[in-house]
Every structure is written in structure tokens, then in C-alpha cells.
């Protein structure tokens, strides 16, 4: 394995110690697929809590007098209604409505925003943002300085509480607290967000304190289990949380990908992609992201073709796996909208075979 060319997070040296298996190249980063096993870690997050190193994610700070104006121009969601210490999930689109990235916008101060973007898109996003630079705005890539750990699962709040006096139960979803001390680690941004479909927190910390935070968390409670990319993917998949490069891409719009709720066509100022997205909304998108369940045998995988019951090609699988929580072979598929109705019988081409499947409700998993 040529790990040396791959980028490493500040936690890389601890992976082996925690029993990480199979370090893979994920968008240029050396990250573990699992520590114990994907299924074991998946259940740990659904039932107790899991700890993820997501330091590969990118952080871009936008500050200055015109910061809000620029962010609101770039994002499909409405940034002007954000309060300080509030985060919002949004898409960033091209003029044609295709997606540059999906991300979280954190409002740190009246004129300071932190964008948390996908690892593989950091350079692309920076170029795109800088191409729309305005006077009175400073754009800074902090990705090399900020690490991110995610503590996810029903016990996350109780476990994290052991490290701080800040009342975590009071932090509402998509809200955060800055400059929190967790054990001996200082200046942590504690955000009630996540990518698993469970309650939990995302912790932003300086690179040089990331190892101390990771260790303090694991020492605080043995119910917290280190988790890899594999479980992160099955967890977000069951909760139908989009993964850029699969559900979203330059040729897939937020409406098609089922995140139309991030597009505020009527917000007070113009934004990039608005005209194209408005047209798409009026005419109804021609493609739709749906859930499907294999009723015959086989597992749908990214890129497999989907056919109608009369053997017409109607789309493709964006993500699919054996779902550990639902115990079925499930897929998300981008199909022609007329085939998106619940109960519609379709077929998935698994290698040389056409396998029967049916359109089912999403998300596959909802927290009780």
C-alpha cells in the first residue's frame, strides 16, 4: 500500500493502536474502512455510540463585510436567516443547477462563516468560491489546521458530557457552541450535527489537539467505539443522507437528489443556479432519487443500471448495500421520475442478470 503519497489526518498514527483494518485511499486520504467490523460498528452507532475521524473534511472560512452576501450568492439555501452559532446544510450549485458540493455553513460571527466541505472537493470549491470573490471578503482554507471528530449515537450526548461542564443537552440540532473545553483540550467547536441518522456531535479542534481529544473520548467511556469509513457509509445510506460523487454531482441537481429542501428559490437575493433551478422546479424534475429493495437475490451497487419491468433502461444505482439495520439488500437509484412511485416494480442489472426490485419508502431508517 502506497500510504506515503496519501494524505494523513492527525489521527493516522493512532489507527493501528485502535486496531484499524484496511487503510484505503479515500479521495486521496489514507483512512480506515473499519476497526472491528463494518456491521459491528454500524450497530454500535445505532445502539450506543461511535467515534469517527472525519478530519479529511475541508474547512473554508469566509469573513468580512460582504461575507454574508458572498455566501448567500454561492449557496442555494438562505444564509441570511442564520443566527450566530447556528449551522445550515446547503447545496452549492453551478449556473445550470448541477451541484458543485453539498456542505454545512456555520455562522461563527456576524461577518464570519465557516464552510465544511467534502474532502475530495476542497480545491474545486476554493476555486469556485474565489472565482466569485467580492471586495471586503477574505477567503481562507483552514483544512490543514482543523481536525474533525464525530461522536454519533444515542449515548453520544451522555458520553461527551463526561468531558465538559457545558450543558450539551441544551444544544439544539444544527446549533453549536464555540471555544468549549473538553477534558484538557481547548477551543473546540461542539456542533449538534452528524451524518449517521442518529443524535450526535461533530467536534472541530486544532490539528495539534486532535490526538488528545480522540484519546480522551475513548477513555471517558468504553461504550464509545472507534468506527471507520465503512460504517459511516452504511449509516448515512440508511438515513438517505447524500454522498457527493454518488447521489450528487455536477450533472445531478439538488432537486433530483432529493435535497430540494436546501433550495430556497424565493430567498431575498439572487444565487448561482437560481434560474435553472426555478425552471426545473416549475417543470418538475425529470429524474428522481428513489429507494429500492431487491426482492430476488443480489446486492445493488453504485453504477448498476436500473430497468423498468418492460426492460427499458430508466436510471442507475447511486449507492447500495446490504443494510445492517434493515437486513435487506437496498439501493438508492436515480431514475426517470415516472418510475418513482412507491411499489413500482423495476429490475437492477447485477453483472449479467436482471434482478427484480421494488421502489420503497425512504429514508430506509428513521431514528425513533
Amino acid at each position: 500500500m502506497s500510504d506515503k503519497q496519501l494524505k494523513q489526518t492527525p489521527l493516522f498514527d493512532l489507527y493501528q493502536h485502535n486496531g484499524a483494518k484496511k487503510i484505503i485511499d479515500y479521495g486521496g486520504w489514507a483512512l480506515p474502512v473499519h476497526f472491528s467490523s463494518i456491521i459491528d460498528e454500524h450497530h454500535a452507532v445505532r445502539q450506543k455510540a461511535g467515534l469517527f475521524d472525519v478530519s479529511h473534511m475541508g474547512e473554508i472560512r469566509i469573513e468580512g463585510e460582504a461575507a454574508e452576501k458572498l455566501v448567500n450568492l454561492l449557496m442555494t439555501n438562505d444564509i441570511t436567516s442564520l443566527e450566530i452559532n447556528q449551522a445550515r446544510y446547503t447545496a452549492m450549485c453551478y449556473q445550470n443547477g448541477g451541484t458543485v458540493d453539498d456542505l454545512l455553513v456555520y455562522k461563527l460571527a456576524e461577518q464570519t462563516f465557516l464552510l465544511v466541505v467534502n474532502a475530495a472537493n476542497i480545491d474545486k470549491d476554493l476555486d469556485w468560491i474565489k472565482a466569485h470573490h467580492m471586495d471586503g471578503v477574505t477567503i481562507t482554507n483552514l483544512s490543514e489546521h482543523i481536525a474533525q471528530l464525530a461522536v454519533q449515537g444515542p449515548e453520544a450526548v451522555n458520553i461527551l458530557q463526561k468531558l465538559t461542564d457545558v450543558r450539551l443537552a441544551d444544544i439544539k440540532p444544527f446549533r453549536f457552541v464555540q471555544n468549549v473545553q473538553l477534558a484538557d483540550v481547548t477551543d473546540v467547536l461542539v456542533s449538534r450535527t452528524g451524518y449517521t441518522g442518529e443524535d450526535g456531535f461533530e467536534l472541530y479542534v486544532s490539528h495539534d489537539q486532535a490526538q488528545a481529544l480522540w484519546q480522551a473520548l475513548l477513555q471517558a467511556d468504553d461504550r464509545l467505539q472507534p468506527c471507520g469509513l465503512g460504517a459511516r457509509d452504511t449509516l448515512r445510506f440508511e438515513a438517505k443522507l447524500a454522498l457527493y460523487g454518488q447521489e450528487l454531482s455536477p450533472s445531478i441537481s439538488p432537486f433530483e437528489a432529493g435535497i430540494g429542501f436546501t433550495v430556497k428559490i424565493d430567498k431575498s437575493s439572487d444565487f448561482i443556479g437560481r434560474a435553472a433551478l426555478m425552471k426545473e422546479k416549475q417543470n418538475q424534475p425529470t429524474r428522481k432519487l428513489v429507494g429500492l429493495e431487491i426482492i430476488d437475490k443480489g446486492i445493488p451497487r453504485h453504477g448498476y443500471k436500473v430497468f423498468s419491468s418492460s426492460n427499458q433502461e430508466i436510471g442507475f444505482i447511486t449507492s447500495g448495500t446490504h443494510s445492517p439495520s434493515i437486513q435487506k439488500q437496498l439501493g438508492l437509484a436515480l431514475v426517470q421520475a415516472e418510475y418513482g412511485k412507491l411499489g413500482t416494480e423495476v429490475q437492477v442489472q447485477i453483472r449479467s442478470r436482471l434482478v427484480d426490485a421494488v421502489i420503497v419508502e425512504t429514508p430506509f431508517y428513521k431514528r425513533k
Partner: protein
Amino acid sequence: MDLPNDLKYTDEHVWVREEGDFISIGVTDHAQDELGDVVFVELPEQGEQLSATDSFGSVESVKTVSELYTPVDGEVVKVNQALEDTPELVNESPYQQGWLIQIKPANPDQLKQLLDSQSYQKQLSEKE
């Protein structure tokens, strides 16, 4: 890594146990470990004729699909039905309960090309 001496191996990470006129095959401990949690095994039907160059099935984990190749041409005489409901046997017992199929080789000479445990072990260590 468990590599029984009485078995033969292929560079596709399949093990072969010679049992009189038949051979049993499965995937190696190394292969199951690389795959992670096995959640689905696709196998041929009893009576099917297999060719050494074609994929005869697949083992799928949560994350990936691994195609299966037999080292010899021949007829499938038995299929491990237990894997339909308990595919995790491939992880838990790759050389025993996790066996895949039994074949009657059409051309036993093909068996001579198989690796012994030491040669297979050497291949694995060269890869790492």
C-alpha cells in the same frame, strides 16, 4: 493468517481440498479478512458445468463484490446451501463450514498448477 498445509491454493485466493474424485473449494482466510463482513454469496446450481476461465459466482461483503473463479473445469456436484441464510460462515470458518462448492474435475491435470500453502503464503507476503 490460517493456511492449512493439506490444502492447495490459487492466486485468486481460493483454496482447494482434494477428496477422491471430487474437489471442494472455498475462499482463503486472507480473502475473507480482506472482504470484511460477508453478507451474500452467489453460487451456481448443482449440475452446472464450470469453466476455469469464467467467474462462477461471487462473494459480497458490505463494501465490495469479489468474483469467484474455479481453478479447474468441471461439474458442480454439491453446493453449500447453508451460505444462503448464513453467509457469515465464510468469515467464521473459511476452510470448514464456509466451503462454497464441490466439483468433479473434467481435467484433473489442471490441479497440478495449484500452489501449496508455502507458495501461496509467499505470494501474500510479496504483495504486502
